[in-house]
């Protein structure tokens, strides 16, 4: 039995195909201007690539900001799907918190013992603390996003006091003019993102003393090793990251679809 989870994000569409609840395939394509088309195309692509048709799929669940734009059997928010996906990816990690820093938004989710969402916070109004902030800063500093992941870890981040993108830009112009080291500034920028994230985690109940305190770090920004290190320094615990974490939402959606089909067939049988 096949199920599909489609995470229609603002930057990328992620689709996961499960066979009897086990990973079969996953693809990632840019969302572009039209989430409806890119969503449906990504689903067709994964079907083709596995010699399947829509008729083979027992259930499709969509999630992400574009979840309403494609045809599917159920739509579930990215918060719930992320939590379910993290359960699968980090099953053995004892994860109680998920921190997701994506291109347009960031979220902190706390989970109970059964991996259900017990609280969450989202920041989607302002760029600070999201990938967008890093993107803007990269443009300012005439470097690329990937450079934010290749910084030496033996220099101190230079503190950036402004959280707001607009103010941070002028602050950085000033600091560069004063001759502050560019790499220290880049680390400072990352640390301001880390400080935002720390605040969100604490507000959903994270504290370094809690026994089960694993934090899974997902989303595009989790690929920055420097950011992960700075976060670990602030939180005082190691973060769990995974190559698979980009799929967390889609995987969670496919898993929810699988559970639903299962409970229905059981109910019917």
């Amino acid at each position: 039995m096949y199920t599909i989870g489609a995470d229609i994000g603002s930057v990328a569409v992620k689709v996961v195909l499960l066979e009897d609840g086990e990973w079969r395939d996953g693809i990632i394509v840019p969302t572009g201007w039209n989430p409806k088309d890119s969503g449906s195309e990504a689903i067709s692509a994964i079907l083709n690539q596995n010699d399947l048709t829509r008729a083979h799929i027992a259930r499709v669940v969509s999630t992400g900001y574009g979840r309403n734009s494609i045809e599917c059997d159920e739509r579930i928010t990215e918060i719930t799907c992320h939590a379910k996906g993290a359960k699968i990816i980090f099953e053995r990690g004892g994860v109680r918190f998920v921190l997701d820093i994506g291109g347009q938004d960031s979220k902190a989710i706390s989970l109970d013992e059964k991996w259900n969402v017990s609280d969450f916070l989202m920041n989607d109004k302002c760029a600070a603390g999201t990938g967008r902030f890093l993107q803007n800063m990269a443009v300012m500093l005439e470097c690329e996003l990937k450079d934010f992941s290749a910084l030496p870890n033996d220099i101190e981040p230079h503190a950036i006091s402004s959280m707001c993108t607009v103010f941070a830009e002028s602050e950085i112009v000033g600091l560069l003019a004063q001759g502050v080291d560019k790499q220290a500034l880049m680390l400072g920028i990352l640390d301001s993102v880390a400080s935002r994230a720390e605040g969100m985690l604490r507000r959903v109940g994270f504290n370094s003393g809690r026994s089960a305190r694993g934090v899974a770090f997902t989303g595009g920004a989790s690929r920055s090793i420097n950011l992960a290190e700075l976060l670990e320094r602030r939180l005082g615990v190691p973060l769990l990251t995974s190559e698979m974490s980009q799929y967390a939402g889609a995987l969670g959606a496919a898993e929810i679809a699988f559970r639903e089909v299962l409970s229905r067939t059981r109910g019917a049988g």
Partner: protein
Amino acid sequence: MRDVESIFEEMRNAIPAGPVRIKEAVDKGKKIVGCYCAYTPYEVIRAAGAIPVTLCSTSDKPIAAGEEHLPRNLCPLIKSSYGFALTDTCPYFHFCSVVVGETTCDGKKKMYELLNRLRPTHVMQLPQTYADPASLALWKTEIERLARRLESELDVTVAESDLKREIAKRNEERRVLGDFYALSTLNPAPLSGLELNIVNEFFKVSFGDEKSLELIRELTSRLRENYKEGERRVAPKKRVIVTGCPTGKSLEKVFNAIEENGGTIVAFENCGGIKPNYELVDETLPPYDALAAKYLGIPCSCMSPNNKRLDLLEKLVADYYADGVVDVILQACHTYNVETFLVRERVKVPYIAVETDYYQGDAEQLATRMGAFIEMMN
């Protein structure tokens, strides 16, 4: 007897017709007194022979104009209120001879200083705690001072007998609303939150008129009868109580986000809902004492401490079988925002605070937030 749909229809139509009725009243020589807040004792204004009306304050349209005089990082309710007055686009403001305000939150009381340049604004000095006798005494004096001001502004006298009559009448209005709200304690709910909101908005433009009150009574008994006969207007969903800053047109986006994503709003604790109406004025006390006690007891976040709000919410959660509580915080409303910490602790059911303003741009995000919040309850 009319059916439920046609009663709702009549109410929906009455809301935009409010200004015309006020104009007609003015043409007949009636005086209009503009109000913003639940602390304004309507009884005193009515005893002075005037009609108290709620001034416009819940649209984003006049905010830009308001920001010409006010700082941007101020609560949208305050900017909207002032912007409406400044641009003369609130028909109720246009027709009112006096405005009554209170020293509730900082932004509002300072805004009234500017508003006074547009229309005579009487500001009542509101104490910020309800339990202590000195505060109660001050508030009683303030209510008396309001009566004296209205007497001189409107050239009338406010007699105790008038006050007593208006107290009884307003109490009856609160009772009618209370009966209506109590419908939603039924599980599953007999009506949606959007419908609740229609009645709240309709009540604002009832202007103390008996016919409007009768319509609410009729709606209540119709809904109750239909429910008994097995009619279910809304599918069973997660039961949500909305609390926080005052509700209004521009916040319907939040209510929609709740009700389109698996929830039903069973109660609005906010001003415009239960908060100002759940307690009556004691008709056995001398009128000014009774009014002072009732109004100072409104559990607004301007009070410190504000334990009554927490008690009220706890009771509502139990009475309305609530599955969750949504605290709506207007941007830059510090008092309600700080209080979210205590509310979260107290309600013991899933709780979420959403910060928003009057602009409609965050409807998508609200849908995700509310959707995830309701999924959390499953």
